[in-house]
């Protein structure tokens, strides 16, 4: 077993507002093996996007990384200076953004946007090398060479998202964080863009963290799945195992809320709403909505423990 490319240990991201500290990410721990794809799912406000921002060290005030470690390839990102972090971005760690339609600079031609990241990371390119590099990147994401001389507004949403993908792989990073990369696209384009990302991940041997709430997409794409709820990690495991035998009641509810073709009728949602992150419930954060909650759940916070090999869960049902 190779060393994990990313180890997140007890990561805490708090937003300090007038009413107190909002614990957007609280005590999250997980590993990511080299070359694997991990999905990170959860409801809106579960802290999955904050997780992505924290990994990029892009938490803006009043938010702050309050504690913990994020070790990428042996280097703790939390401890890096701003300049060291800037150099790490794109070279070792890249992001595919959420809103593809607005993620490109509207007044710059695509070729300039494709190479400026490389230029700022010490790559020197002659005019000819530049053109070759741009052409190759565009080809990798299945775009025509003529796109190089176009402006973002001349491209469709799917094409723009492909351009952002091309930028994020331009320096062949170790890890790519894709924060709902297809949420702004229609289903057909969604599938095509996802296929492109998948192919590149395999071809370049990248590790990928895919953030989203589309359980179907996750089942098709990732080999490991992490479930977050109210800023906390609920369960992590191999995707296949998670769908076949979800341990945490929250994961069970998430999966049973998926529409199944054979099963016509009313879908079971998850009753209730996510708790306030300002005053999370005592004990397990999910106990207010959990159908299997018992006395202990409202009294003590369950520890995040390895219930089976490679299978971590934070639930009193499995640790007690």
């Amino acid at each position, binding site marked *: 077993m190779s060393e994990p490319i990313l180890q997140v240990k007890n990561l805490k991201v708090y937003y300090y507002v007038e009413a107190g500290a909002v614990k957007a990410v609280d005590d999250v721990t997980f590993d990511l093996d080299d070359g694997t794809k991990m999905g990170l799912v959860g409801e809106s406000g579960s802290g999955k996007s904050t997780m992505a921002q924290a990994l990029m060290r*892009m938490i803006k005030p009043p938010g702050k990384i309050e504690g913990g470690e994020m070790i990428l390839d042996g280097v703790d990102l939390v401890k890096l200076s701003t300049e060291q972090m800037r150099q790490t*971005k794109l070279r070792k760690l890249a*992001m595919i953004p959420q809103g593809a339609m607005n993620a*490109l600079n509207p007044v710059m031609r695509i070729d300039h946007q494709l190479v*400026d990241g490389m230029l*700022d990371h010490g790559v020197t390119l002659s005019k000819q090398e530049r053109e070759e590099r741009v052409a190759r990147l565009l080809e990798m994401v299945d775009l025509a060479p003529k796109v190089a001389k176009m402006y973002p507004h001349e491209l469709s949403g799917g094409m723009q998202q492909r351009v*952002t993908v091309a930028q*994020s792989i331009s320096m062949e990073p170790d890890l790519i964080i894709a924060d709902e990369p297809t949420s702004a696209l229609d289903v057909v384009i969604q599938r095509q863009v996802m296929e492109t990302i998948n192919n590149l991940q395999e071809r370049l041997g990248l590790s990928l963290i895919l953030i989203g709430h589309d359980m179907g997409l996750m089942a098709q794409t990732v080999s490991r799945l992490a479930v977050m709820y109210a800023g906390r990690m609920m369960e992590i495991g191999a995707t296949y195992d998670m769908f076949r035998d979800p341990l945490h009641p929250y994961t069970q509810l998430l999966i049973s809320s998926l529409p199944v073709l054979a099963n016509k009728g009313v879908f079971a949602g998850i009753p209730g709403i996510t708790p306030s992150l300002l005053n999370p419930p005592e004990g397990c954060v999910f106990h207010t909505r959990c159908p299997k909650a018992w006395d202990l759940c409202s009294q003590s916070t369950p520890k995040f423990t390895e219930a089976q090999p490679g299978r971590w869960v934070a639930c009193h049902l499995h640790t007690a």
Partner: protein
Amino acid sequence: MRIPLSYVIKRIGFLVAVLFTAATINFIIPKLAPRDPVTELINQKIASGGLTSEGAAEFGDSLRKLYGLDRPLWQQYLTYIWNMMRFDLGYSIVNYPQRVSFIINQTVYWTLGFVLTSTLLAFVIGTVVGALVGWSKTSKWLSWLMPPLAMFSAVPAFILALLLIYFLAFKAKAFPLRGGFSATIVVNWKDPKFLLDVVHHALLPGLSMLLVSVGGWSLGMRAMMVTVEGADYMTFADAKGLKGPRLFFRYALRNTLLPQITALAMQLGLIVSGATLVETMFSYPGIGNRLGGAIRALDYPVIYGIVFFMVVGIAVATLLVDLMYPLLDPRISYSGG
């Protein structure tokens, strides 16, 4: 090129229409006024003893004949439009036989000199300060600049001019009180001593224009900067690990400039008229001061001439902005037809 020729032609046709309309309104409005410049001039001459009442009627008739005021209105109008097309603005009544074009030519460079300089300086300083204050990565002490700038932008330029005159010219005697150059100096544009004297005289009026407009530029720029910094493409650019200067200039500043440049062009169109009060305060030999004088003396041809000149300035500035847009923002293009 993203500007098709047909658009340029259409746009210039529009400019001509604007000028024609402006000239027509310029012609009609004084005809609606109950005052008659010739009668007033004669009364004035009689009052000052330059004319006796016997010859007054004949004098008036000859004046009316000279200015074409005895002919039917439609003939006057056609003559007027024909003259305007040739930029023949006629003669001043008060300073006869000075031509209005001569008066404009004599005064416009004084105004252009100090107003253009102060406007461009204010634009550059205001934009840079606003951009830096709005940019989250610059140090916070810069934001202390904003309250005084905002205060200056709220004060009318002529009030600021009064304060500057009182404290810097009258009390401290660091600057001349009035005029465009010293009364004792020989006018010679090739003499560096004369040029220095001109600059010395232009500093205070220029400063009052500058202080008043810097605040506006920086406030607008700061707001734009804050908006742009929140845009998705800034977040993604940050995630790409771009260097600070590239983020600031190529991503943030480049996207905030469009509204700033639009405002600048409109401001340039107003240059000639914008400084009227300040020029009056300083008795500056500029076009605005001359316009004020013409209004007081009811020198209609001069008023029309200068106002028409200002209209031309604004119309041409607007045209230039329109033609510049596609070069500044690739999202704007004019399709032909």
